[in-house]
């Protein structure tokens, strides 16, 4: 009981820290806070440490493949040079879609 409540208290505190960091604009700090909170939930509420060993394996497996998805998935976008055609959308343009059967 005490464990759950103290965990909850910590989480609320971290939430407050997050809000403060957001006011400052420390984006990486916010990310770190969020990661810490997620870890707290996993260990405090979901009791990852006391779950069967399998649970930890699955959780780590999921996280590993998540990192593969994020890393390799964003690799392309971050290293690509785009040459946009004309200006990108500058205002809520009229629906840009043209019915496919109009003449050029």
């Amino acid at each position, binding site marked *: 009981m005490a464990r759950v409540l103290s965990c909850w208290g910590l989480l609320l505190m971290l939430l407050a820290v997050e809000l403060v960091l957001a006011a400052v604009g420390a984006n990486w700090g916010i990310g770190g806070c969020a990661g810490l909170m997620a870890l707290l939930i996993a260990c405090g509420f979901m009791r990852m440490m006391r779950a069967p060993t399998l649970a930890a394996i699955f959780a780590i497996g999921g996280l590993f493949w998540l990192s593969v998805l994020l890393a390799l998935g964003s690799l392309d976008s971050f290293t690509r040079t785009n040459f*946009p*055609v004309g200006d990108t959308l500058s205002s809520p343009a009229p629906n840009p879609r043209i019915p*496919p059967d109009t003449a050029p």
Partner: protein
Amino acid sequence: MTWLPAASVHAGQVDILLGGLLLISLAVLGLVFGLMLLNIIRFRVGSRVPVSAETVAHKSWRFEIAWTSVTLAVFFALFLWAARLYVVGFQPPSGAIQIYVTGKQWMWKVQYPGGQREINALHVPLGRPVQLLLTSEDVIHDFSIPALRIKHDVLPRRYQSLWFTATQVGAFRFYCTQFCGIGHSRMTGTLIVLTPTDYANWLGQTPASGSLATRGEALFIHNGCSGCHVSQPYSPGADDTSRAPSMVGLYGSQTMGPDGQRVKVDNAFLHDAILHTATVSGQAAAYATQMPSYRGVLAEEDLAALIAYIQTLSPSRLSGVGMSASPERKGN
């Protein structure tokens, strides 16, 4: 069936790479099938050769390590070879002729630096680097020229670059190879490689932009005429008239009218033939498809544009505008 020509130095290099891959594949394939057959012949039930399990177990590790590392080494070499050829595609030489190509369901619009435009055809000079700047008006297309062994997807709202230096005069097909809707297979065209002088002549003779004939060409493609009627004098399939008469050289020629009399193909004839297909039904049996009527589909100004376009396909019958530049010409 003719073997695919290699119309650039790069194409030749890709062919060598493909040859290398083919050799390796054949070697491995020979090994696999050979071992399989040998094993079957030697070890089929009935012709059993006693083999001690001990030796097999001992060999296992060394075998595994050996063939794994050999495979890895070969693969890495292949990777490097292929990657080097690929990187070239990202490095267009300076001073290349920049031609804008726009994909659209279902046609290719080509625009030259001098303002000339054409549709489903791309004229380039021999021996000079050409850079295509590709974009799409709607979905993702892909501009593919097999004779040059290059292709690239064409995406909306951004330019993709594709460059090449053609080393062989002639006409080669290009295709859309990214599925782009039901008209996908009609989205093909012809790359025409001309000698530099012919290219200069061609540029000079092609109307700069927005002419009636250019509009007619777009209509011709867009209304599906090009699905049956051949209209590109230089394209590799230009002599295919199995579905419908070719438009090349049609204007001004003589043809069979509905009542069996010979008539001259002129503006009025074409106008009527498009609207009332009965005008030319005397010939219908000769072709695989029956032409639908375009009454109510095409407006009068569309018809005018179409006819203007068809006229340009019979250059010898028009004064002034000659298209005899191409050595590959197949018109009658």
